[in-house]
């Protein structure tokens, strides 16, 4: 358990929860990232709505950029997968989150906070599939 970081995990999680809660109170919307990104890309969404969603995405990129540039935080983002795997994973994450109407934020944080049965089922599906896939890659193929 040498990688276990309970305090930064709790603090980061609390900030994510706070951002979701504030977004709901201030703008009246669910902070589901796949929905925000998907709707920002769809021409069916009204322009003012699209700008708001793009603004959220811009905030999501700018804040970590500023933090990484200005503080000695030891955060990393290491991808250990082949190029085909990265592309296939990206495609099915994009397709799957739209088909299932949500991801870790929309179903996981917001949905479970609303005690939605739909989100509970979705969360069990992607958690289960994530655990199974990691198992196969690390212990079946990788062993």
């Amino acid at each position, binding site marked *: 358990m040498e990688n276990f970081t309970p305090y930064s995990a709790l603090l980061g999680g609390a900030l994510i929860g706070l951002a979701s809660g504030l977004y709901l109170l201030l703008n009246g919307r669910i902070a589901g990232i796949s929905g925000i*990104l998907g709707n920002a890309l769809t021409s069916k969404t009204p322009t003012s709505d699209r700008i708001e969603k793009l603004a959220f995405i811009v905030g999501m990129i700018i804040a970590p950029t500023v933090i990484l540039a200005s503080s000695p935080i030891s955060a990393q983002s290491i991808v*250990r997968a082949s190029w085909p795997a990265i592309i296939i994973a990206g495609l099915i994450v994009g*397709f799957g989150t739209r088909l299932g109407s949500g991801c870790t934020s929309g179903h996981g944080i917001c949905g479970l906070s609303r005690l939605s049965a739909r989100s509970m089922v979705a969360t069990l599906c992607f958690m289960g599939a994530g655990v199974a896939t990691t198992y196969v890659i690390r212990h079946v193929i990788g062993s």
Partner: protein
Amino acid sequence: MRILASVFCGALFGTGLLISGMTDPQKVLGFLDIAAVQTGGWDPSLAFVMAGGLVVAFPFFRFARSRKNAICGGKVELPTRRDIDRNLVIGGLLFGIGWGMVGYCPGPAISALAFGHTETIVFVIAMITGMVIHKLMMATLYKAAITQK
């Protein structure tokens, strides 16, 4: 006002993702790798991210239920669907497979763009392509359904 609130909430969200460690795929996979419990290599941190998020978000969602209007204007729009259909399950499973393959889900992948790695950029482009494919497929299915009638 709404745009400003969006940038602010997005920034808060991205900061949370970075601090929590979610923007590191190896940290995420360390959580999904439950089989590593036997060797003491399992990293339960992600459960704490989820717990922290739920504890803070829950009262906001409770409070918002009794409100019709958002503070920055417009209505409070909460999802109304209750049905558990095939798309929800298949979509969730597909997403989970992709998540386990690389360790990125949509939010962390976007915020991890801050690191500037080519792998992240390629993943996000593929993810957006997947969303566009879904949109085109739904439009085609919708048209086919209409012409059948």
